[in-house]
């Protein structure tokens, strides 16, 4: 195991932990859910996850309909399973199974 690898791993680990911890430590609540900071922070959850979905899906896009059929039908299945059972696990696994089946068929 070379030294450069170990130093970079430790620095990146430390830096990432600080990004996660320091804002938590020094944050002060506004005490008012209608305050701008509170509204910004409560919108952060849906915004972060929506952005992550776009980031995960974008590399899978293609102009070829056959290539993106698993993605389209898999995503549609996630939505339908979610609306049906209101359960994240069922929607996720159901979507992935549909994705796999469509992938195998086309």
């Amino acid at each position: 195991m070379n030294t450069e690898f170990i130093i970079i791993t430790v620095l990146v680990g430390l830096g990432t932990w600080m990004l996660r911890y320091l804002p938590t430590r020094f944050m002060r609540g506004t005490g008012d859910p209608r305050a701008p900071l509170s509204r910004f922070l409560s919108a952060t959850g849906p915004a972060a996850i929506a952005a992550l979905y776009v980031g995960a899906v974008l590399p899978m896009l293609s102009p070829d309909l056959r290539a993106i059929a698993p993605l389209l039908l898999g995503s549609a299945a996630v939505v339908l399973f979610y609306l049906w059972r209101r359960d994240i696990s069922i929607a996720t696994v159901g979507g992935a199974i549909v994705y796999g089946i469509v992938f195998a068929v086309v």
Partner: protein
Amino acid sequence: MSALPTFRSGARASMPIAIGYVPVGIAFGVAAIKAGFTALEATLLSAVVYAGASQFLVLALVGSGAPILVTALSIIATNLRHVFYGPAIIEAARENATKRHAWAWSFFLSDGAFGSAIVALNRSRDYFSPRFMFGIGAGPYFAWLIGTAIGAVAGGALSAYPAIDAAMGFLMPALFLSMVLSLINRVHIPVVIVTVCVTLVLILVTSPTVGILGGMVVGACSSLAFGGRKPA
């Protein structure tokens, strides 16, 4: 299911993420071996850094000849979005919030762990406690480690089953999509629409790192523009 602030209810809330992290961990383990690292190095990287995208960057940049500090800082920068995760959780927990042991549980705040914490707290603030946060963190973290080790040691075997391989690759996008669905309410529909549009454009013209961070910040800020209505 009652909203108990226990380790177990946290672990239950992040179970889907833990399952989703195994295949992504496997993909990372496979990539690490391909890049010339050992199984031990790959697992160590997952254990110490625990942030998917930046770990792939470590694989690419170690040995590139750039100064170590510059390399480390530019990799850390890809995780900048994480600065909002802890404060968003504290905000969501409101009167139940406590920062006791936050130095420890915040280490485990990956994208997925954050998502499951927010989804649970959105259902009830009563879930929040340090124990609940450790429960949220434990499953995905160990799943990520186990996935990395499996990928590094036996990753090649999966390529024999392309449909299963493909379906596993869709687990994380499917999880993000269903988490968005569970979080969406009248107030946050415009936020999600703005986020998706801005992220899309920014990723296309800049990079995924900038796009995800920028889309998320602009999207969350847009909640102020659509304000005046009932808070979430």
